[in-house]
C-alpha cells in the first residue's frame, strides 16, 4: 500500500461503528453534544483510522478505550445476500470501498467466514467484470449491464478499467493492421 494511494486514504476515512468504554471529557462533540462528557457505552461512528488507533491502543493491562464493531456493509444481512448470489448485490450501495474495509476488518478480527465470502464474491464478480469489459464497446448487454456496472465497488472498477484497456489495445491493433 503506497503512501500516496488515494484509495487507501479514502478507505481510511470510511466510518465504522464503535463504542467508547471510558468516560471522556471534551469529546462530547463526537456525539453531537459538545457541552456534555462522552459517557461510556456511547455508540459512535468514527473513521476507520481513528477507530483502529483507539481500539488497538491499550496502556498496560487496562482494556482499550474503544470497542470496534463490524460495519453494517459487512454485516450478516449483506453477507447472507452475498452468499446467495454475489452478482445480484450492488456492492457500491453498501460501501464504495467494500473490499478495502473488508481487508482492514480481516486484519483486526479473525473472521474466517468473512474472508471466505469476500473471496468468493470477488472471484465470481470478477468473471462478470471481465465479460462486461470485453463487451463494453459493443454495447451488447443492454440495461442489465448498466445496472451491474453501476453497482461495481472501487476495486472492481479498477479491475474493469484494466481489463478494458487490454481488450481495447488488442482491438485497436486489429483495426490498425487492416489499413
Amino acid at each position, binding site marked *: 500500500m503506497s503512501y500516496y494511494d488515494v484509495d487507501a486514504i479514502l478507505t481510511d476515512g470510511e466510518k465504522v461503528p464503535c463504542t467508547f468504554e471510558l468516560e471522556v471529557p471534551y469529546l462530547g462533540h463526537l456525539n453531537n453534544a459538545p457541552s456534555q462528557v462522552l459517557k461510556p457505552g456511547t455508540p459512535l461512528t468514527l473513521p476507520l483510522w481513528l477507530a483502529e488507533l483507539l481500539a488497538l491502543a491499550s496502556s498496560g493491562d487496562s482494556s482499550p478505550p474503544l470497542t470496534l464493531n463490524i460495519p453494517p456493509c459487512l454485516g450478516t444481512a449483506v453477507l447472507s445476500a452475498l452468499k446467495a448470489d454475489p452478482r445480484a448485490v450492488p456492492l457500491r450501495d453498501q460501501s464504495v470501498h467494500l473490499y478495502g474495509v473488508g481487508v482492514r476488518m480481516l486484519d483486526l478480527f479473525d473472521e474466517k467466514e468473512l474472508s471466505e465470502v469476500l*473471496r468468493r464474491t470477488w472471484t*465470481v464478480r470478477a*468473471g462478470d467484470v471481465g465479460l462486461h469489459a470485453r463487451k463494453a464497446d459493443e454495447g451488447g448487454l443492454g440495461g442489465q449491464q448498466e445496472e451491474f456496472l453501476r453497482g461495481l465497488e472501487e476495486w472492481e472498477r479498477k479491475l474493469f478499467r484494466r*481489463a478494458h484497456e487490454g481488450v481495447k*489495445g488488442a482491438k485497436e*491493433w486489429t483495426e490498425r493492421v487492416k489499413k
Partner: protein
Amino acid sequence: MASPLPPGLAPSEIAFLCEMELITIVPRQKLESIDLLSGTTPTLRPPRRENVPLWLALLLKKQRRANIVPPPWLHPDSLQDIIHFETKINPEGWAPPPPPSARADGRGNAQRTNRPGTTPLSAPFLSSCTSDAPTGAIPYHWFELAEMLLAHAADDVTSSAEVRGLLRDLQEVRSAKLRAIPAQLEAGIDGVMSLRGVGAMELAESRGLISGVIEGVRKIGASAELSRREEEEQRGDADMDNEASDDDGMGF
C-alpha cells in the same frame, strides 16, 4: 519511479515480434540475398519456395514481387479441427501448441530438431508458420499472424472469408475460457492454472484482468495467510523443542 507502461508487452510490440516469424513465399522476381542483422535472407529465384521473415514477405507481397504461402494451420479444415477440440473434446483446456519440430533422417525415422546437445530452438526460430508447419495446432503468434495475413494477403489465403469467420469463433471460444479463469479461483488457489497453448495476443488482452483478480485474491487472503503462517511457525517451534528435549534425554 515506476514505468508508466503497463506490465507485459503492448499489442504493437507483440506484432513486431511476430514479424520475425519465418513464412514461406513464392517469389515472382529474382532477389539476391540480403545481409541483415538477424542473418542473411535466402536468394530468391522464382518459382522456388523460400522462407523469409514475415515483414519481408509482407513487403514483397505489397510490391507484388511475391505470393505468400499461408501456414497449413490457417486452412479452414485445420481451424475447424481446433475449434472442435476446444469446444467438444476439451471444453476446459486449450488446444495444445504445435509439437516440437522433427526431421526425417536417412533411415526413415523422425528425429526431434531440438535434440539434447544442440542449441534448443524456440520462437521465432522454429518454423511454426512456414508451409511445413503441422496442421491442427496453432502456434504462439497465431492471432497476430492470421490478422496480418488476412489484412495484407487475403488473396493468398485459402477461402479467406471462411477463415475469417472461423478465426472469430476461435477467438470468442478462447477468450471465454480466459475469462473463466477467475471463477476457478473461487474454491481457493489449489493448483496452478495452465496457460499452455495460449497465444501472445490473447495474453496481452487478458493480462490486466487475470493479474488484477489474483492481486485481489491475494489481498483478501493476506491476513488469513499471515495467521496460518504464524500458526505453522509456532507448531514448528514446538516440534523443535520436543526434538531438543528428546536429544537431551538420549544424551543421558
